[in-house]
């Protein structure tokens, strides 16, 4: 079943076409990898899907609903969570508070709840605490719960950022280079985590450079170069694709 469909998506920055008439689909419960050389338009594509930038042409459709041009916060509440290439966290706040904030989109208590301690506010606080504990366990961050997010080791920060994306129960998570700047041993832990995310029923779309990792992990690979989709398929197909080999100088065969 198709969860997300991208239809003729185009984004221009002045004369540069960063994303050029891109079509692809992400099916529910899969891991889709988006690969391509630097400047191929991968992050721009994520920005277009998550609403932080508006496409010039084309459509983004999530589960049958056209979400093109929605604001990022609305897209997030609709069920698309994302992480950023340069790990974004609420750095001075403890790890668990980061997760509380991530779950805010599923709680509704506002000013009156805060001032009057309404039953809903109390219930939602409990519910939040439960969900936060769950995610701390899921991402293996329980030991860091009380530490400021910015003081965590690089790899733990990456996992926390993924946790912040997951805590609001998204349908789809977009991970922008989740293993960027992380050592080899820790890369394996993050791959395991991504596998676990898929097994928990959340669809994953991941931007990556590490080809070995991708060919093992992804169900489907979409390859970009200069803003254009040049190939798409399962890992085997893509690795044998002539255009891909050319773009990567045979890296994935090595």
């Amino acid at each position, binding site marked *: 079943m198709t969860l997300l469909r991208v239809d003729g998506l185009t984004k221009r920055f002045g004369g540069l076409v960063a994303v050029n008439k891109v079509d692809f689909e992400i099916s529910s419960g899969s891991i889709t990898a988006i690969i391509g050389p630097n400047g191929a338009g991968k992050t721009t594509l994520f920005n277009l899907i*998550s609403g*932080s930038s508006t496409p010039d042409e084309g459509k983004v459709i999530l589960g049958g609903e056209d979400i093109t041009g929605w*604001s*990022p*916060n*609305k897209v*997030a*509440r609709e069920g698309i*969570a*994302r992480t*950023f290439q340069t790990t*974004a*966290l*609420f*750095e*001075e*706040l403890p790890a668990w*508070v980061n997760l*509380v*904030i*991530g779950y*805010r*989109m599923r*709680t509704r*208590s*506002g*000013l009156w*709840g*805060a*001032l009057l*301690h309404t039953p809903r*506010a109390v219930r*939602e*606080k409990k519910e*939040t605490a439960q969900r936060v504990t769950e995610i701390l366990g899921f991402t293996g961050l329980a030991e860091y719960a009380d530490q400021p997010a910015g003081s965590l080791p690089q790899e733990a920060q990456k996992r926390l950022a993924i946790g*912040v*994306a997951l805590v*609001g129960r998204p349908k789809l998570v977009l991970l922008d280079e989740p293993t960027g700047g992380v050592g080899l041993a820790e890369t394996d832990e993050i791959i395991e985590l991504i596998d676990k995310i898929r097994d928990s029923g959340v669809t994953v779309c991941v931007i990556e450079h590490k080809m070995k990792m991708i060919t093992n992990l992804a169900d489907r690979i979409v390859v970009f170069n200069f803003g254009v989709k040049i190939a798409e398929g399962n890992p085997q197909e893509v690795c044998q694709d002539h255009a891909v080999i050319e773009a990567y100088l045979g890296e994935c065969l090595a």
Partner: protein
Amino acid sequence: MKKFGNAGFYLLLVGIAIALPQLLNLTSSGKYQIHILTLGMIWAIAALSLNLILGYTGQASLAHGAFLGIGAYTFGILLARVGVNFWLAIPLACLFTAFLGMLVGLPSMRTRGPYFAIVTLCFNFIVFKVFENWKWLSGGIQGQTVPIPSYLGQRSVRYYLVLAFLILVILTERQIVKSLLGSSFIAIRSNERLAEAVGISTYRYKLLSFTVSCFLVGLAGALLAMENGQLDYTVTNYFYSFYILIYLLIGGVATLSGPVVGAVGIFFLLDRIKSIGEFRNLIFGLVLIVVIIYFPRGIVGGARQFWDWAKRQYAGRRGGVLE
């Protein structure tokens, strides 16, 4: 255990605050000090209001002087010209200030960072000029008298009233920042882009925070009008925006006790050195520079750092002996 210790400490502070006017009433110069302390607490309410939008939501409003004046004038005009009851005039002044704050926030919250500060400063300047020139509104040089009920004629009664409001404001702000709503505000301060990406409508929450903040500064304005019994257009001056900001920064931004310590403490000290005239602003400026460079979280933040450091030193030594 620690929780009870804290509660005890706060109760002690409140006890001192309650006892203080009784002691000051014994001397003739003490009566004037009651007035100064009352004004200090009113500025503390103003600093707490700015704390919500600047300290917890990360948006530097430089229009709080204007909203203070608007609250004060709304209150004064309701009492003197409309003849509204005192206890009704206070919430009405707050609500009207909050409403205007929301109107100002609607366009200006679309801007970010320093632009918001500039837009609000411009707004304050406009309000100041309007009050300066619309004499039918501000009463010109003569200003606006604020008739208060006779039972508020005594200084110490007004002191207690302001103290009660100050405690109420502190508790309100505490409730807000500890709630889920508060986590949304703090998220915006910490990383606005990420807050938006995790589903927080940053515009909506910034607007809410600003509106509540204006409500509170409206209260400070009304109480200022009550305490002084007299208003003129200078109450909307943008200087006050900076004064409130400085009380907050020196006391400790994003803490609950900081604005109170900063406003009451500095207002009191400034009054003590009134004899040196405008030079006191020079001292003020130097203190501000030192605090911002060495204690980014103000006096209260600095004191906490020192306390933690002292605890570590002590714990370290004791641990060494035991081992």
